[in-house]
């Protein structure tokens, strides 16, 4: 089963005619994702990977029954694409785009709260439920069906961990990247709640990093979960005041260091892995 997506999820690709959008659409189709069409203003009427392209989300919904969208639109226009998806009632919006201005995302967030849409990202690798559907850019071959939920703020580090789990014969129910920006649509707690309610998920791997307090905010929920959570937090070696690549990965005013997060987790009795391979061992022990 997994969370948020399944075989019946019908996906629209916003920005389907771009280099990245078109390439990743092909990868998602190969994975088995039900891609029903795409949107690029001015390119309506054409085809990409034999899927119809529309000028707007509104037009796409007249011809398809999409209930999810994935956004590959450049950062200057990405917030507009999110608003368009929200206004058209898309249930799940996954925004891959990196580098969206934070003021745009604050406006998106204020609007999103009043809607029934869910936004994953931006600046995230998306979501994958093995053998069912993939929305986003995670490499196809690393996944393996199973009972571990994975949730992370990172992209490539998620691939490494998922790959390592699979190679050790530990399959995943769903792997989710919530994104590395300071203002994003879905938090750790949102995803942990879904994993807690998912009968197919038996344990969760949670990968956090420096900056902000989203990891700390999830502690109270983790403590009341019935399923084991194995956490891993990166950035122990990061100096304060410098942004480590992710716009959100900055230690400011002494808030958000990796050590503080690790200590807060350990104090709450949550398992913290020391390395990626340590995660595998701890997951095995927890089952």
């Amino acid at each position, binding site marked *: 089963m997994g969370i948020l997506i399944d075989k019946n999820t019908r996906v629209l690709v916003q920005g389907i005619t771009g280099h990245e959008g078109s390439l990743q659409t092909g990868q998602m189709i190969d994975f088995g994702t039900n891609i029903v069409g795409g949107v690029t203003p001015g390119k309506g009427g054409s085809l990409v990977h034999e899927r119809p392209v529309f000028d707007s989300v509104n037009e796409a919904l007249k011809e398809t029954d999409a209930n999810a969208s994935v956004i590959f639109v450049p950062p200057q226009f990405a917030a507009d694409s999110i608003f368009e998806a929200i206004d058209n009632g898309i249930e799940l919006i996954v925004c891959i785009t990196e580098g969206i201005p934070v003021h745009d995302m604050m406006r998106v967030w204020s609007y999103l709260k009043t809607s029934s849409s869910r936004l994953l990202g931006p600046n995230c690798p998306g979501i994958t439920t093995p053998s069912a559907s993939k929305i986003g850019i995670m490499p196809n071959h690393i996944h393996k069906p199973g009972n571990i939920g994975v949730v992370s703020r990172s992209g490539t580090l998620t691939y490494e961990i998922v790959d390592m789990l699979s190679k050790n014969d530990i399959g995943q129910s769903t792997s989710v990247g919530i994104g590395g920006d300071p203002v994003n649509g879905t938090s750790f707690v949102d995803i942990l709640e879904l994993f807690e309610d998912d009968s197919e998920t038996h344990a969760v791997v949670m990968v956090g990093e420096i900056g902000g307090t989203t990891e700390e905010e999830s502690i109270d929920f983790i403590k009341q979960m019935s399923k084991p959570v194995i956490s891993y937090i990166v950035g*122990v*070696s990061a100096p304060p005041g410098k942004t480590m690549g992710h716009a959100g990965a900055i230690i400011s005013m002494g808030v958000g260091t990796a050590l503080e997060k690790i200590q807060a987790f350990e104090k709450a009795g949550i398992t913290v892995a020391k*390395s*990626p391979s340590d995660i595998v061992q701890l997951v095995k022990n927890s089952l």
Partner: protein
Amino acid sequence: MKLYEYAAKEIFSKYDIPIPASTLVSDADGAEEAARKMGEVVIKAQVLTGGRGKAGGIARASSPEEANIQAKRILGMSIKGFPVKKVLIEEYREPIKEMYLGITIDRTKKSPVIMASPQGGIDIEETAKNSPEQITMMHINPLTGIHEYQARMLANSLDRNKSPELINIIKKLYCVFIDNDCQLVEINPLARTKDGIIALDGKMVIDDNALFRQDFSQEETGSLEELARKNGMSYVGLDGEIGCIVNGAGLAMATLDMIKHYGGTPANFMDVRAGANAQQVKTALEIVSSNKNVKSIIINIFGGLTKCDEVAKGIIEIFPEIKIPLVVRLSGTNELEGRAMLGKYGIQMASSTEEAAKGVVGLGHSN
């Protein structure tokens, strides 16, 4: 992107937020001349770091001659590694009361937050920690903007007797924050003087992601950070000996952590971002190896958008020139092709982040 005090104040002035009369100069004679016109002045080092007052980078002068001497002294200074190239000569305005006004982004509430304190001038982070009741916080819905009642409450918390003047400044500062895509805009101190409320200092940080629609020209510093940014990558210099090139910020942080875990010291953080091509990988190697402290380099790639054969191509192009031992980990898209290409050159390969980190730390020990 941080702005200098003088640049922030120029923007305040455009929004009719009162600032003292001032002149920006780069030599002591200029300072003397400016002081001759203004009378008693304050000379302020223009550097992109805090704590310049404590470091002696701010001085008062009551005569043009004194201004010359002080400007000469401050222009010779280096504050926290930042050489002082310019000083702002500002008309001295005596504060009767010093307040704090700032706007930033609250990540938890995902909205702008205005902070006001009647206790300004001093370290606001200390005030926040030790006497949080002295700070009024007001979250603003970015879709509606600031409401009149919010500005009024903030103004009253600062100084009830000067409310209309303060309401005006608060609303204008919110416009500065929004119009300029600020991560932070701050007036500390916001001073009451006998002639009215005035911004005695100004700090602005602009969101780098929004620079495409803002008109700020980044000052050229010639740093490795800047060179990386121009090439679509992200670099942060550290003080260790192992150069690091990784795709993705999270994986890069994990790589640095693992290097430390095995007893090594990272010389830098570098995220080559998703989809890096051969040219970018080559440039990344040039940047990382130009740091003289670097004794060995780790390249850790988990290709999703990034293709391992492209990475290998970039490495091969520059490998013979750099003469620094490498450990390379290539996984993901086109990994077999990439590994085969590097195999011919006898480069040490690894199959995971941990193996690569262990390998590169081991190189340091054997040298």
